[in-house]
């Protein structure tokens, strides 16, 4: 039990990486505040876990929502040790395709949501006597530019350096809180569903994505949850400010295709 006696909040936990993370945390002994803007989805994930979870539906882009969600979690489980900021949204499009509405929504959830979560979690972990980590899900798109996902890259790049700043702040203050960002490549989750129809169906899309990943497939939510577990657990006690890449060697470098005629 790698998270024995720990209390965690996981956002975006109605589906995909967030749900896999909440279930993995619970399996490893944590009690979990299951957060999502989708209240029914949050309740379903919490129900799968049982008594060791509560559903805390809220919108991560709203400061009041964080105050309430963290307050309820600490009131119910006595403290907070871990926050996994998983909630995120993405709209495809180049810099010229982006609408203000898409941009504002991505900034609100992906960047403001993570920032508010870090603030709320640092205060709650400190004040409740907890110790642990904040794990922010960024993306490969938080480390490199991608022409046709420009806005998403902008928000995820912000998460990368925000996480390092949070890591340094907590270290400087002597707080028992680490901060790590996690950088997945394509993940086979519900987040892909809205764009599947535009690119010839889900399987065609997943196959096309897999061809871009050297290891030959795209990630599963569990692959990413495993890394979030490691980063959140005391196994990573001296890891802070690190960008943990889970990408099947996609960033390792260009393939050798050019040598094969």
């Amino acid at each position, binding site marked *: 039990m790698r998270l024995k006696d720990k209390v965690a909040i996981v956002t975006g936990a109605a589906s995909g990486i967030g749900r896999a993370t909440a279930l993995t945390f619970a399996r490893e002994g944590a009690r979990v505040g299951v957060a999502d803007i989708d209240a029914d989805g949050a309740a379903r994930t919490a129900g799968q876990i049982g008594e060791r979870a509560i559903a805390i539906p809220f919108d991560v882009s709203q400061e009041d929502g964080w105050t309430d969600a963290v307050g309820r979690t600490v009131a119910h489980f006595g403290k907070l040790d871990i926050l996994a900021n998983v909630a995120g949204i993405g709209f495809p499009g180049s810099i010229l395709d982006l609408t203000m509405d898409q941009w504002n929504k991505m900034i609100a959830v992906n960047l403001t949501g993570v920032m508010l979560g870090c603030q709320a979690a640092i205060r709650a972990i400190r004040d409740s006597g907890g110790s642990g980590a904040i794990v922010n899900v960024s993306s490969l798109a938080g480390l490199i530019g991608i022409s046709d996902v420009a806005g998403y890259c902008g928000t995820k790049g912000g998460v990368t350096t925000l996480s390092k700043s949070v890591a*340094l702040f907590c*270290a400087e203050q002597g707080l028992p809180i680490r901060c790590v960002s996690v950088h997945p490549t394509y993940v086979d989750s519900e987040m892909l569903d809205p764009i599947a129809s535009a690119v010839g169906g889900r399987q065609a899309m997943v196959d096309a994505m897999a061809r871009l990943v050297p290891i030959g497939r795209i990630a599963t939510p569990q692959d990413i949850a495993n*890394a979030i577990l490691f980063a959140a657990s005391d196994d990573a006690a001296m890891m*802070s400010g690190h960008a*943990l890449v889970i*990408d099947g060697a996609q960033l*390792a470098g260009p393939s*050798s295709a050019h040598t094969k005629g």
Partner: protein
Amino acid sequence: MSGRVSGKVIIVTGAAIGLGTAIAKRLAEEGATIVRTDINGGGDVIRQDVTDEAQWQTLIDDVVRRHGRLDGLVNNAGVADGKGPPDPEGALAEDWRRIYSVNVEGTFLGCKYAMPAIAQGGGGAIVNMSSIGALVPTPFLSAYGASKAAVMQFTRSVALHCCEHGYAIRCNSVHPGQVRTPMHVDLIARTAAELGIDEDQAAEAFLSKVPMKKWQEAVDIANGVLFLMSDEARFVTGTSLVVDGGMSLTN
């Protein structure tokens, strides 16, 4: 409860001392069968000079014959110091060659001979020990830092090579910061002597560069290696795992 690397046969080099000992112990605790090697062999540690190509071939053959398989390799053996000064201007070519021979060629040879053996058994993982020295300038350890950067880069080539050849072998580098191993104790002692200060002062100067203000324990590094060796990291390859208390952020 089964361990996180149960049933895996893993070679750890440089396992008689320091990080290698801790890595071998942690992997064994989680169920792996560990083959320990070191330049200073003895007891259950096999004597191996990682710069000797023939010894690698013999070692891998022996492990596969005895255990029936090879699932992993931790290229941990490394050296930091030479006979001459460590700075870029004063360093001796002979020291550079020696440090490169152990740290870079040793890692290359390990990967070269482990890859086919691991692939034959259906896949596994290789971890190459790099260092924070690959990520920040190290004029006080110039050959070491450069050699560890080479290890990091070579790791990515191995990772891609394995993907392209369908080997199901993952390869990653691990980057410890300040761990009080015998190698680190030597560094502190040398720094103190050079600066004419006592060793506590020299140690404090190093620690002041770690934002978390704690030395890493060897087990902190071993836990990172364990994660990468385990099937939990089945999608993690060609990357660099930094366990440094935040040091690379500020230096």
